[in-house]
């Protein structure tokens, strides 16, 4: 018991000495001080928090501008639609007597088909024009 305890104590002492020799204090790199000083001299490049805040601010502004543009487009589209609907209604009301005189009972159907053709034409005109321009560019 005593011998075992003595061996453990001697092993503990030997281990302590071995750890002391093995876990030696690492030398601080000679370049560290120069690096810190250099980084301090150019705060704008190394201040990550400031860079992040600036980039986040820029991104927020871009998003706000994008959202404002989107709202403006939606408003103008809605305005255009309402205007066109009223204009079409007014035109139909004005043209109705003349159409009725010439087309008779076919007037409602003619107006419906005419409106549908006009609407579809407006929907497909812009993409078709873009497609034609692309073909022209490729050619």
């Amino acid at each position, binding site marked *: 018991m005593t011998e075992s305890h003595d*061996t*453990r104590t*001697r*092993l*503990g*002492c*030997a*281990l*302590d*000495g*071995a*750890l*002391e*020799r*093995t*876990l*030696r*204090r*690492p*030398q*601080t*790199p000679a*370049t*560290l*001080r120069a*690096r*810190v*000083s250099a*980084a*301090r001299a150019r*705060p704008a490049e*190394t*201040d990550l928090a400031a860079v992040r805040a600036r980039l986040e601010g820029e991104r927020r502004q871009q998003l706000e501008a994008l959202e404002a543009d989107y709202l403006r487009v939606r408003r103008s589209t809605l305005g255009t639609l309402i205007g066109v609907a009223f204009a079409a209604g007014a035109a139909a009301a004005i043209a109705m007597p003349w159409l009725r005189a010439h087309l008779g009972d076919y007037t409602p159907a003619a107006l419906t088909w005419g409106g549908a053709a006009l609407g579809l034409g407006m929907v497909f005109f812009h993409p078709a024009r873009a497609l034609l321009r692309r073909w022209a560019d490729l050619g």
Partner: protein
Amino acid sequence: MQAAVSEAAERDRGIVELLRTGGEERAFEELLRRYEGKVYRLCCALLRDRSQAEDAAQESLLRVWKALGRYDGRASLSSWIYAITRNRCLSALERRRTLESLDGLGEEAEPAAPGGGEPYDGRAEQLLALVERLPERLRRSLVLYYYEEYSVSEVALMLGCPEGTVKTALFRARAALTEMLRRRGLDDPAYWREDAP
């Protein structure tokens, strides 16, 4: 011991005073002189990679310098500096884990030996390998204890825990190392003596 602590606290106060009275350059020099090595050693113990430790030490010292004007003195300057350093190292460890999981190579970087220089012989390599096998909490305390030349209070400050916790960790680390040596048949005290053949 108490005198040394109060002297250190006095020097820390001197750094803050220098900064407040416009002596920026001297405060910066004093800060680096006093903490450059300690911050680097803490980074080495936490990150186990000399190159990453240097980067982390640089960023930590720079953060400390930039935030020094806002230091309110509630904690000691050294505790405050070590807390900033620990946070920086934890971020680096987190980033390293993320990169390793993204790489998906399953190859973990071989940790650098915590010894300060070349191993003195094969026994040192054996011992370092065993130290690396210790649980992280015990390994950090043990490594810093030898780096800081047996100062339990300094290790406790660096790791941000009570001195009793460090003492317990040191005791357990030594016990675990002794057990590992015994299992490997390396528990002959004569084998570990410096002058052993």
